[in-house]
């Protein structure tokens, strides 16, 4: 093996981003070979559109998983905040409604974070409780009815373009760029990694571990509400069951993206590729006319394979 190949292999083993890029390219190439339609512009635009909602939720989920936590409430929160958005459009106007929606998402996330951090309750339990509460509130507030008749301005979020990219996808990329900066170059982001890796050492070194733990859950709540906004803009209708399953999709994206569920290890770019891979596979299976019932099996197999791969690679590292 040449030295160059060895260096490349070493970097592949040590850098999540590179590994995920390669994996995404492989998946794309595979799908392009089996379906001529996959690489057409129309289909790619479709794929971008589909990755927006899960991408937003997965971003918040990444922050939470980095500190060694988990947020099961994201899907229900998207449902609840979506209903609030829909009902508030008339009295508050679109801008006010979106602000209220994001505010409620932040509040619910902060409640999660405060109980987990100061009450020292397991994140799994607290967010499981919040998952149930938020879904129930979505039904209570909406009277179990769908809300249609949303202002056309909301639809523009998903139907307009900017620099040749769909606006919603462009916004997703901007938010991911900000998150990348935050995790790599900001004090708060590095604190999240340190908490997940060794919270006690972080405390002794003077880092604000409680503040940033609560903030991670708060951010996850905001991202759920933002996802709800884009979900509503795509179909211009809101259903109390909306966002169902996003908790599992987002955790799957983060895990496929190479993060450790024990915290301290992972990358935001990895999560983005994790989202793409999931959406590609779903899309590819649709193009191949595979029954949608098989999609769960495919996604599940990929999650398990990704974690196994991560285990093998980290065993090699140490």
């Amino acid at each position, binding site marked *: 093996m040449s030295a160059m190949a060895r260096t490349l292999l070493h970097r592949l083993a040590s850098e999540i981003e590179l590994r995920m890029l390669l994996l995404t390219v492989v998946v794309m190439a595979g799908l392009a070979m089996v379906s001529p339609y996959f690489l057409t512009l129309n289909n790619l635009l479709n794929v971008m559109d589909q990755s927006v909602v899960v991408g937003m939720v997965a971003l918040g989920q990444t922050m939470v998983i980095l500190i060694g936590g988990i947020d099961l409430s994201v899907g229900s929160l998207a449902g609840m905040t979506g209903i609030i958005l829909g009902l508030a459009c008339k009295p508050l106007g679109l801008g006010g409604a979106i602000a209220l929606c994001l505010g409620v998402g932040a509040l619910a996330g902060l409640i999660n974070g405060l109980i987990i951090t100061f009450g020292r309750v397991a994140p799994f339990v607290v967010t499981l409780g919040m998952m149930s509460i938020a879904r129930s509130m979505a039904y209570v507030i909406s009277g179990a009815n769908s809300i249609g008749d949303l202002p056309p301005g909301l639809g523009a979020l998903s139907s307009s373009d900017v620099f040749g990219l769909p606006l919603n996808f462009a916004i997703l990329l901007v938010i991911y760029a900000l998150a990348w900066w935050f995790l790599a*170059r*900001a*004090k*708060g982001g*590095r*604190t999240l*990694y*340190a908490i*997940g*890796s*060794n919270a*006690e*050492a*972080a*405390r*002794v*070194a*003077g*880092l*604000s571990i409680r503040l940033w733990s609560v903030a991670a859950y708060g951010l996850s709540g905001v991202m759920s509400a933002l996802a709800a906004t884009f979900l509503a803009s795509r179909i211009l209708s809101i259903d109390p069951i909306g966002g169902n399953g996003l908790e599992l999709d987002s955790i799957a994206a983060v895990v496929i993206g190479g993060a450790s569920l024990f915290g*301290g*290890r992972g990358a935001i770019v990895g999560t983005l590729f994790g989202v793409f891979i999931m959406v590609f596979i779903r899309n590819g299976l649709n193009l191949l006319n595979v029954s949608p019932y098989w999609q769960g099996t495919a996604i599940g197999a990929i999650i398990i394979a990704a974690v196994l791969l991560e285990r093998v690679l980290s065993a090699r*590292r*140490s």
Partner: protein
Amino acid sequence: MSLLALRAISKSFGPTRALDGVHFALAAGEVHALVGANGAGKSTLARIISGHLRPDRGAILLDEKPLRLAGSRDAIRHGIAMVTQETTLAPDLSVLENIMLPRLGLPGRLRWSAWRAEAAGLTAQLDQTAMLPLDAPVRQLAIGQRQIVEILKALALESRIIIFDEPTASLSPLESERLFTIMRRLAARGRGLIFVSHRLEEIFAVTDRITVLREGRVVANARPTVDLVPGELVRLMVGRELSDVYARAGGGGAQKNQNMVLEVSHLASPPVVRDVSFVVRQGEIVGLAGLVGAGRSETVETIFGLRRATGGEVHYLGAPFRPRHPREAIRAGIGFIPEDRRGQGIVPDFSVRENLLLAHLGGHRGIGLAYGARNAAIAELMGLLDLPARRLLDANMLNFSGGMQQKVILARWLLLEPKLLLLDEPTRGVDIGTRSGIYALLRRIAAGGVAVVVVSSDFEEIIGLADRIVVLSDGVTVSELPGGQVDIEHLAILAAPRSSAAGIRALLGDLVAAAGGIAYWIGVEGERLVCFDRVGDNQAADPGFAVGGLLPVAASAIPAALTAARGELVREADGSRQSLLIALTGRRGHDLGVIGITLPGAAPAPDGPALRRRISAGLAAWAADDAEARAA
């Protein structure tokens, strides 16, 4: 003939040599103490005997036949069991189920009625039938009772060798007493017991022979317990030779007129820190000496804001200082190197560079990282610490030796240019070579005007390194000594664990209030005495020694009283003083020193028997309080 013999056992962890050619022999029917300071290798040895670790070299002989242990199960099969403070019981199963748990893994039917009879028999053997209901879930039992279940489990396996690894760490005095009774009984029935502990009083109370380890080597092999005294044992544990690793850079030490950096007075942080006072000046290295559990780590953690102070005061740079959080301490210019490097120091997923910058990040105000601003300082520090920057900075912290890691943690704090540096066991797990480098560095840091506090269990290290030594025992400052001049024996006597120094102090106060004069608590070792505490200020009654002083009995002002029998009122030959001394003995009959009161010779002769009764009553009350406090 020995039940178990270890021949030339060696064991290394990476570059650290934990055991080096250790010989050890256990006879049937004895309780054999395995003693040593932190990191001496006693736990490693215990884990080798119990099959948890495999030795790199050397042989284990059971009944004089070679034994190869494949794991702890294998050891249990050969009749070797281990009892630790963290028991390995299943909390939701009953006592009976736990005792018989190993049999659930064997083929065949469950014979609960036969097993119940067997367990009842074993419980009766230990005289625990009334204390230990077989059907109670283990979750409901106190820790002491759980250990007894663990012992019963070992007995049900017909274990002949039982290792007790620090079993009393979280037991009340009553529970410890009960455990010791059981241990003696097991030994009397021909089993061999190994007792690992650092509590000297317990070692003297329960063991027959003592083997002392220091830095992985045996320094005293199977010495009969009756031939040793506590001072001698501590000296064996901590070593005596002062090698040249501590070489002082001439003069050294701060002058009296240097600026005061830290003043700690009567600091209390329950449950461990009770009354700690000391000062540190600019450019000075102060050592906090004492044994494990004396409250040294807790004291520095309180100063750094990791624990809450409930009493006393800390002045830092002349102003009252009580940080609620490490961040406040860091921003005030204090650095802290914790004892548990892996648990409290290293962030394993960060590169060495980012680990080095961790405290910078903690103290940093602002949104970004400002790492770039530190590049020059890092380069300089890497040179100062003799660290290979190119190989190091982007690598994983865990790839390097303990000494290298410690240097990086040290650099983490030096980067912030602290005014006060607190170090807890800075050379734990650090090889000898790197140690002298760290000592030299600490001297250089101090010479640069930083106030340095070093906590260490290694008396040799503290004597070699510190300008002044503050001795803690049971959460109370008992003495302050100049470094360099003091010897290890002196330090050992002062640091020897004494229960309830605060309770004794209250008793001394009572005595002085009632009878006047000066009351004191001293230890007498042969021809020398050391004063642990002293209350009262009547010059005419001065017994001739001050707290922390070590002097010949003859040099005191009351030699007659010190050499006479205890419990009698003794008048000195020149008639200047009259004293009453009473021996202080622990619950298990070992020597805790002497309580005394001296009155001026001219004073009317006090009522001796009344005074004696008063001291005895005070001691009894103190012992009861002490037992209660520890149980709670």
